[in-house]
């Protein structure tokens, strides 16, 4: 039933009528990298420029009022969508900036505490502390923590991925020395979904903050960060039908109050003198300079679109497509699936290897049939090494995909080994 959803929605996404290489119908299976945009989102951004554009919070003229109202209304709408208060939502340029913000704010706390500012003693970390992440993180949730560990002397530890491609939440990794636990809500390679509640339980016991990479979860199912109990969560607008150039960061009240600022400049200050500065205490503390206003407004339109279709409907639809893809691929010779092969705790993307054919060649062949998948290490290079794969191909599904898209994909996939003469 929901299999027809993609058909129903297709007209809302102008790009889906693109002809690949001038001939093939586009079958876009790369939404885990970035989603396509419905007309209403494109229009929301355009309309902002033609009717409302001005800087926010700093101009008393009418356009300034209208722009500020639009920006804050968008914040409210996006915050409610993930179960949080608008005051706890910070806009960034992408999820990567959000995670960096937390890591650099902790670094700043550490440096400021060292320079004698006692307010930051609690957040400061050092050689006796540890940061726990997982083997299945995206580079965006690895490299900032490696850097923080390197310059503060803290230890970086990894929760392991088990044979089935799911996270092994080993409580022995959580200790009194654990200050930060940074995990992905859903792996962008394996598709496996983390038991966040369990992570939060273990982290709470030892007093560690939990930073969630929600890039692959917020676009795909109902997420309530307050209920989950995480300390922080970062995700991107461009993967949930929103414009490029906008990301979101949730900080709970504690972090919002206690973290020192990251990017420094206009808007986030309380007072500036030639000698020193003090900073706002609300979410503005983390929004320096002229923000991505039109993109935030566009993202709010994307949230409306998603709510309108219904997150449960989207979730169910993507699961059915994923199930159909998995089933077809499992019955095909020479295909190795990375990650769980059943639908338990796993969501809408399938990474795979084709025996004897490099992922680049796989994606190139699929492209010649109009099918857009991604090939590479998907910014999760260490995980690929662990899985013994140089790289992989990844097909990912979203609300605008159809059962027919899956069929075209499977049919093309089935021809690859013949074409490259490895069958």
């Amino acid at each position, binding site marked *: 039933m929901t299999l027809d959803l993609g058909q129903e929605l297709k007209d809302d996404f102008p790009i889906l009528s693109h002809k690949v290489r001038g001939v093939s119908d586009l079958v876009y299976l790369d939404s885990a990298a970035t989603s396509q945009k419905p007309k209403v989102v494109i229009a929301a951004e355009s309309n902002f420029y033609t009717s409302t554009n001005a800087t926010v*919070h*700093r*101009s*008393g003229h009418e356009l*300034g*009022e209208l722009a*500020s*109202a639009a920006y804050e209304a968008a914040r409210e709408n996006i915050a409610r969508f993930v179960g949080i208060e608008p005051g706890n939502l910070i806009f960034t340029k992408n999820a990567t900036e959000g995670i960096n913000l937390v890591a650099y704010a902790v670094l700043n706390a550490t440096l400021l505490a060292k320079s004698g500012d006692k307010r930051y003693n609690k957040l400061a970390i050092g050689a006796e502390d540890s940061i726990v992440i997982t083997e299945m993180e995206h580079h965006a949730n690895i490299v900032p923590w490696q850097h923080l560990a390197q310059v503060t002397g803290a230890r970086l530890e990894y929760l392991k991925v088990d044979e089935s491609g799911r996270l092994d939440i080993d409580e022995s990794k959580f200790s009194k020395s654990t200050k930060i636990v940074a995990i992905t809500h859903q792996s962008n390679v394996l598709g496996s979904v983390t038991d966040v509640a369990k992570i939060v339980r273990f982290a709470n016991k030892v007093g560690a903050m939990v930073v969630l990479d929600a890039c692959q979860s917020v676009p795909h199912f109902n997420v309530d960060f307050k209920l989950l109990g995480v300390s922080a969560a970062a995700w991107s607008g461009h993967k949930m039908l929103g414009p490029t150039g906008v990301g979101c960061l949730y900080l709970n009240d504690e972090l919002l109050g206690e973290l020192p600022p990251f990017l420094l400049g206009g*808007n986030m*200050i*309380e*007072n500036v003198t030639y000698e020193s500065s003090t900073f*706002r205490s609300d979410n503005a503390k983390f929004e320096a300079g002229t923000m991505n206003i039109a993109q935030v407004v566009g993202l709010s339109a994307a949230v409306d679109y998603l709510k309108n279709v219904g997150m449960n409907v989207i979730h169910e639809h993507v699961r059915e497509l994923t199930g159909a893809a998995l089933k077809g691929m499992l019955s095909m010779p020479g295909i190795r699936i990375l990650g769980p092969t059943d639908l338990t705790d796993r969501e809408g993307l399938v990474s795979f290897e084709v025996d004897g054919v490099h992922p680049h060649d796989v994606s190139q062949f699929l492209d010649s049939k109009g099918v857009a998948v991604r090939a590479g290490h998907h910014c999760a290079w260490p995980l690929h090494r662990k899985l013994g794969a140089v790289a992989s191909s990844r097909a990912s599904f979203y609300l605008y995909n159809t059962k027919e898209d899956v069929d075209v994909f499977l049919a093309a996939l089935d021809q690859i080994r013949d074409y490259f003469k490895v069958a």
Partner: protein
Amino acid sequence: MNLDSLYQEIILDHYKKPLGSGLQDNFSGEAFHVNTSCGDEVTVRVLLDGNQILNMTHEGVGCSISRASASVLHALTKEETTETFHVLLDNFVDLMHSQGKVVPDEEVLGDAAAFAGVSKYPARVKCALLPWMAMKDAIEGAGNE
């Protein structure tokens, strides 16, 4: 929208001849507030006797709205109780957030009713509220001593 609905005669009069301007030396609580987006600031001092507000004085730099608001607040709270101040505050905050859709109760708000027009200019709401919020903190500060 007519600018005169914002700058009512009463407001401009209070702006020209502010009441309670100049800080009293004898006070129970003090607070300094600043509007970070424009740099406007106000210091409010309250002299209390139990829950009785004997006097509120203020000093600062700011626009006509914020200066007049401090002046009105002085007149309105003189010899009232802190409870009455909180009732007035709730009333005034509601009025400020009404986007011009609430008719102010002049019986309760007195000259402060003249600020109704401000609620149609969201950028100016902060200006009108600045001395009120400072007075609230000044009273709280007094309680803590």
